[in-house]
């Protein structure tokens, strides 16, 4: 990020004047609670009694020796596949199909594909719980109708399949978002590149790899940051569909925080997990930003 120069005679603090109103509200109602959460992670506290006990790093020790945290974290990593890798892949595929040559009816498809992003996750969860219902859910009904009764499952209750099932809801929500993002980016890639490479005898796939993907570097970066963060902080979907079950097969970090804080009154412990989650999310986004700006400087 470059520094902006003040014009001659202009106060160099001028930017602060514009920054301050937004910054103050942000500091008071978002940043201060973040600090307070970090502070609370060093205490044992039930969240409502006046008494807090300083316990140092004990909450963190408990987190790291808690097998539930480890498995929850692993589940979040699996969710990255579903929230990030698959949607980016599908998004690229769709965007490559949609753009460049205008297809009749494109607006309709664009509108439809983005729809899941618009709907509350509580609503999304309600819908998919019904779809996965083993008895009257459309998925098993469809499989039966296709003569594939052997493939029907108790999806959300199946120890092996619950995690991929919930994850695929994430894919459903995210792929339209990725597509629109890439579509936006592809409008900036000059048609000349494609024409030139056509003359060189490159096929559509080669063009995609050598022109489209590099041209979408920035958009892919945004998609990665957004979807990975979504995968790491997933909560509402698990809350509505499985509540972490069966067993702990779909337990994720976000739900563990909620469960510890609101069902078990362990605010200090929940704050420690929350602090770790924040740090992880921060690390991921900084890493991706770093990689991206590195690339940009290289290619510039």
């Amino acid at each position, binding site marked *: 990020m470059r520094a902006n120069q003040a014009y001659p005679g202009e106060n160099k603090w001028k930017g602060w004047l514009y920054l301050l109103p937004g910054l103050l509200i942000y500091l008071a109602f978002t940043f201060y609670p973040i600090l307070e959460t970090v502070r609370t992670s060093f205490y044992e506290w039930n969240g409502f009694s006046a008494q807090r006990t300083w316990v140092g790093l004990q909450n963190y020790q408990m987190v790291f020796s808690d097998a539930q945290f480890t498995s929850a974290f692993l589940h979040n990593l699996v969710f990255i596949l579903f929230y990030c890798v698959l949607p980016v892949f599908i998004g690229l595929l769709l965007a490559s199909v949609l753009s460049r040559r205008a297809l009749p009816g494109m607006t309709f498809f664009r509108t439809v594909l983005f729809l899941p992003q618009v709907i509350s996750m509580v609503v999304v969860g309600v819908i998919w719980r019904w779809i996965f*219902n083993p*008895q009257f859910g459309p998925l098993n009904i469809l499989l039966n109708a296709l003569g594939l009764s052997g493939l029907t499952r108790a999806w959300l*209750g199946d120890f092996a399949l619950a995690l991929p099932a919930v994850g695929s809801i994430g894919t459903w929500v995210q792929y339209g978002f990725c597509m629109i993002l890439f579509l936006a980016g592809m409008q900036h890639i000059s048609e000349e590149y494609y024409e030139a490479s056509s003359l060189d005898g490159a096929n559509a796939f080669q063009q995609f790899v050598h022109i489209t993907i590099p041209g979408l570097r920035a958009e892919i970066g945004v998609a990665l940051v957004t979807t990975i963060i979504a995968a790491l902080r997933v909560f509402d979907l698990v809350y509505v569909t499985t509540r972490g*079950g069966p067993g702990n097969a779909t337990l994720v970090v976000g739900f563990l925080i909620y469960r510890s804080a*609101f069902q078990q009154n362990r605010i200090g412990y929940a704050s420690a997990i929350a602090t770790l989650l924040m740090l992880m999310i921060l690390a991921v986004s900084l890493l991706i930003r770093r990689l991206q700006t590195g690339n940009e400087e290289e290619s510039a």
Partner: protein
Amino acid sequence: MKRIRFSVAILLVFAFILGACQGGSKPTETQAPAEETTLVVWDQFYRDVESQVMDTLNAEFEAAHPGVKIERVVKTLDDLKVTLKLALTEANGPDVAQVNQGRSDMGAMVEAGLLLPLDSYLTKYNWSSVFSTSVASRNSFTPDGKTFGQGNLYGVSPTAEVVGVYYNKTMFKKYGWEVPQTFEEFDALLAKIKESGETPISFGSLDGWNAIHEFSAIQHLLVSLDYINNLTYGVNNVSFKTDENIKAARILQEWAKSGYFSEGYAGIGYDDSNALFKAGQGAMTITGSWLAGELINDTDQEFGFFLMPPFEGKTALAIGGVGIPFAIRSTTTKADLAAEYLNWMISPRAAELWAKAGMLPAMALPEGAEIETDNLFGDTLKAWDTINKGNAVGHYIDWATPTFYDTLVAELQKLLGSISTPEDFVSAVQKDYEAYLNK
């Protein structure tokens, strides 16, 4: 000049927000006449029929106490669990609220000094004639919040609950099945129903909590009242790792393996399994008396209710107890009025209204109350009466430790899915229980 325009723009935006905010009227802010007292009550009777009972009771209370206004706030149980603890720390929090029993709610609130001990009112209103000591202990804690089941009384419950077996009478008639009298007959009936091609037990374990009832209903047939009391109240150092619990777990796992539960039960939620049962898919379902009201309307099937039958030659307990009690905030300035309200909530009139709404009242019905009992509600009433008089009211075991609910749900789902053995199951649960006792 530009500066001024800048600030004006900001002011306009904030004025807009401010205006918007004042648009919503808050009833608390309207000044009441000096002689009028407002009692703020939080309850979780949000479903249609229940809510109407509460509105009626509140209106009658207001009529009987001129100058008193009830400000009712309705919440779902989940919502109540999240918000109530914090609200009770407020100087203007609810005067009366429904507080869920068990350690993570009532226990934690007692420990933090948020609830008023009701013992003086117990004497004043002679509540011991309304409910037994066994019922009172479910709403009792020692003042430090550590020991459950004894010490001070912190709440009074208007409704009662019993977990038993609903059966589809229409289907039973069609196949000529009889209501089983012993557990052995019950088990044999399950096999027979399975053979006929029907689903023996409509069940869904996706939500988790009702799996606890499924297991514990069998457990209650095997253990003694002392054991279940000790376990729930965390006294006398009992263990979860007992032969009875292993046996109950094994029976449950056998049922799952034998296909006695709804197909794909692991992926079905509680509400969905009930909807299936109501639609005639499933001969029986094991759940609480609260479902009775739901099964009466909008269905062409006829349903009945019986208690889980005892093992041959044994006496049986049943999961049950009283509903979520009303409690008083310790810092309220209207304690006497609040107690008067509590007394009204457990009056014969309240019992009558609850019964008419198809819910089991915790109190005796008044003489001559006209309530139809030749139906499903009558069955649940009879069941409650049987265990209440027979001193056979068990417990929801998930009250035992703050983490017991989550542990039981996760471990039962593993047990049902044959991921773990009955022995693994009791060991894992015992680990949670021990960790709590040693704390």
